């Protein structure tokens, strides 16, 4: 651990990695709590995987067509929002089975990404870092984009707390009260999409679903109100991200995987601890 701390002091890339973890944790705790209580983690999973399509396309356009300003993260944001919109509109309006559409968006997005990555000359390393994350490669530009996403996500998720809570609890009744419930549902999916992009920089798109849901699920074992769950989930996400980074550094293990394993371990411990404090109101 002291080795890690010394390395942090000496290397800007590690400082940037820690900052990226912190930025991702802010949105993770707040939006993760909504995702868990609304039970839409599979929608979040589909959005996460479809992000590969956007990353692949952005990278393809940058390398093959010389759109040098286009970063894979830009493609990720676009793809995540499109996926969220498609799933949201289908589940609200079309008479299709929602889980079928979720699965389809999941796979079609990934397939799109795989094709564009194959069309793009260069290393396959890129694909691996999309899929499993490489928090050590985060650049200062990435950090600015992440901070911007945080601002949007946290601003909306906290200012519209009551509306989102009402829609998560009882969408039908919220609609009856004259609330544009469909709009808030789509907004929630949009916020989930942006959070997925933030977290994908930390653990990659395949592992996002664990980091999005496990801290909130852990917090829900201790609190029975949404606000405290959000606060604890944010702190947990930060601790897990930084802890995983530190643990992986010495033995040179993949940080994203260690972070997710740590999140899983913390959740398991909380199941036991939660039972001890379970009988509170």
């Amino acid at each position, binding site marked *: 651990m002291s080795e890690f701390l010394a390395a942090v002091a000496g290397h800007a890339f590690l400082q940037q990695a820690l900052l990226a973890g912190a930025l991702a944790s802010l949105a993770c705790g707040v939006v993760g709590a909504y995702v868990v209580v609304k039970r839409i983690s599979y929608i979040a999973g589909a959005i996460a995987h479809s992000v590969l399509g956007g990353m692949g396309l952005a990278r393809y356009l940058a390398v093959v067509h010389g759109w040098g300003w286009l970063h894979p993260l830009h493609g990720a944001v676009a793809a995540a929002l499109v996926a969220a919109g498609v799933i949201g509109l289908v589940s609200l309006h079309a008479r299709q089975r929602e889980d079928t559409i979720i699965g389809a968006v999941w796979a079609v997005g990934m397939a799109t990404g795989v094709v564009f990555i194959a069309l793009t000359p260069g290393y396959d390393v890129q694909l691996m870092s999309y899929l499993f994350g490489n928090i050590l490669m985060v650049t200062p530009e990435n950090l600015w984009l992440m901070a911007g996403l945080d601002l949007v996500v946290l601003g909306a998720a906290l200012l519209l707390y009551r509306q989102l809570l009402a829609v998560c609890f009882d969408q039908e009744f919220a609609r*009856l009260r004259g609330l544009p419930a469909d709009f808030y549902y789509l907004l929630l999916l949009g916020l989930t999409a942006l959070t997925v992009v933030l977290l994908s920089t930390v653990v990659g798109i395949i592992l996002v679903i664990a980091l999005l849901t496990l801290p909130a699920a852990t917090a829900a074992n201790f*609190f029975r109100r949404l606000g405290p769950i959000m606060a604890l989930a944010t702190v947990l996400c930060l601790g897990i991200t930084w802890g995983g980074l530190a643990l992986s550094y010495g033995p040179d293990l993949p940080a994203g995987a260690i972070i997710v394993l740590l999140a899983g371990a913390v959740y398991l411990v909380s199941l036991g601890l939660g039972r001890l404090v379970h009988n509170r109101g």
Partner: protein
Amino acid sequence: MALIDIKGVDFAYNGRPVLAGVDLSVAQGEFLALVGPNGGGKTTLVKLILGLLTPQKGSVRVFGQAPAKVRRRMGYLPQHAPVDPSFPVSALEVVLMGLMGMGSGLGLWRREQKRAALEALDKLEAADLADRSFGRLSGGQRQRVLIARALVAGPELLLLDEPTAAVDPRGGVDLMNILAGLQPKVTVVLVTHDLGFVSPAVSRVACINQSLSIHPTQVINGSLISELYGAPVRMVRHDHDLEHGGHHE
């Protein structure tokens, strides 16, 4: 002017008729019970009054206007309320959701909104539940919280779909007395398939099984019930509440 005015309403789901030629007029301050067998059209009629459904024939006016326009002046207890026992929300927060759409604005609940929610809970004799987790309440406690949610915005018309479904008989009688106490400020339309809970407080009973017929509470007897349900039904008297005169014969 009648508060609810329904004239010649036909309604069918995908060609399957549920209501036919329904006329109903409810005056301000009335306590109307809608009874009938499952599938008889009770919930459909409530949804027509709320403007959630539109009739294929006939007209529904509430406060003299189209129902959807005046929905905010109505309080509604749905038949199937959310029951996720792990949803992290307090009873008070659930009641507060009844104030949504009333110039809600941003951020957290305001103090006067919390006071209104507590008052609504208090009317249901459930103020002590305010800080409890909604998902951990009993069926009867949950119903009270959800009725408080329907009441908190100060509706002139309260539509309750099966409020006594998950409540034990004692709790059901208590609930009916509380609802009776809202008279005559609030007009109440109560749906039930359980005639045992049609209390003395109810001013009229509308029996609905595709078509609708109105009865004063006094004439509810065995032959009427078997006509309504299409089979003899054993009457069970609920005389828990004798201080209010028991049941009408």
